[in-house]
């Protein structure tokens, strides 16, 4: 009886810890994807604004606008 309860507790702990591990792993992957996408989008916007930035002779600083970029959501 004692052994059975002990075995069940181990499985339960394992289940809880596995859920935690999966969430952590998913969060890590999501962060990685988010950073990656952000960099790709930034590079794309940068390339797209090259002509206007190079043509400007008034000294306007044309930088990539990141205000509309998606926020990080690890549970997505």
């Amino acid at each position: 009886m004692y052994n059975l309860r002990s075995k069940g507790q181990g499985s339960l702990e394992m289940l809880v810890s596995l859920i935690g591990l999966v969430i952590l792993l998913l969060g890590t992957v999501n962060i990685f994807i988010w950073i990656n996408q952000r960099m790709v989008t930034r590079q794309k916007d940068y390339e797209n604004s090259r002509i206007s930035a190079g043509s400007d002779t008034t000294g306007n600083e044309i930088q990539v606008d990141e205000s509309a970029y998606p926020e990080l959501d690890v549970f997505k």
Partner: protein
Amino acid sequence: MGNYSKGQAILELAIFGSILIMLLGVLISYGIAYSSRQKIMQEAFRKALASAAVSGPNYSGTPISVSHSLLKDIHIPNPSDPFAVGSVTPVSARATVTRNYALDANAENDNELPQMRINLQGYEYGPFKAAGFRNEYNVSENQDNSDQGFSSTVVTPDAFADSAMDDAGNYLWEGNLDKYYEIYGAANVLITGDGECMTEQTNVNPETGQSETSCLKMGKNIQILDSFAGEIYDYGGAVRRCRQIVDVSACTKECERGSGDDCAGTCAKEMNPPNQNTNVYDSTKGGAWYCADYYPHPDGQVSRYVFPKLEQLFGYLTGQDKGLGLQADYAQISSINNKLERTEDTIGINATDTLDWEVNTTRDIVYRDKGDTSGDAPPLRQTVTTNVCAEKDGSGNCISKTQAWGVSW
């Protein structure tokens, strides 16, 4: 046995959990640093592009070259910390843009000199000139420097012309200007006008029989675009330049490396002092003042010298690659004040966790006083402190970060 298996699961969770959290931390810090680097490189280039467009007078096509050094202190959060307090790491980039319709043209006035701007955490410092103009007087052109017998000698103009060349057609009298061209680059040396006559010649006019005096060796006044007369430059480059000026063999080696013609002959010539024969700067002639008062290096090695003016300018800077401008060394002071208040009464428990976290980084921008033409002025230093903290208000001031929770019975 049962106690062992209970502890095993907890231990496994603790070990693998901490490894995973560490992995998460590494990934976040790497990702943020990499992303910040990309962003700052793009920003630096666009800033240089914009500055180059407005640096010239009405963007008239004058040669304008602008360097932008951008540095930001990035907060890398630590996922294992409840407030995500982590480390602060500097990320930097530099971009140079030359906007010019005539790329082969050289700077002719102060506005056209190459410049450097330094941007620290959004605040701009400069522009600092990366080169300057230096005037020298009475530099001889390709004429006599060896007393070929024309001074106070009666010769006819035809005889003068014949004697100017040897049998192989080479000039017998070559001036010192060639050495300036070799060391500074011909494009950076501009003859601004005639100086004084350095050697006079007296001829007898065969028609009138009267003596006529003409100038055989005319001094020229020159303007040099000198990268060591600006506000920002490197120690190593300046020492190398001085060695070329004061040491014939060092000059010859550099010249041969650049496949120059008649390197030994060119380098043997004397520039305005300081030069290979005198170390005293003469303000009436206007030599390379930053090489003045040099003496052989105490270690006795060939072609090694100490240049006191440069030592004064760079003396207190550290590191092997000493250079003016934004210094690589910095002081970082990190302060954390974490206050946990907990009240427990008959209703429940309430807790408030307040964090004041701030990292101040102090850096130096060191540059030369551009008005100094003697090398005696100490370097100018601007100390800049940048600030990173947990949270800032709209005015950019650091504010406390608070977390509160409570439980009612």
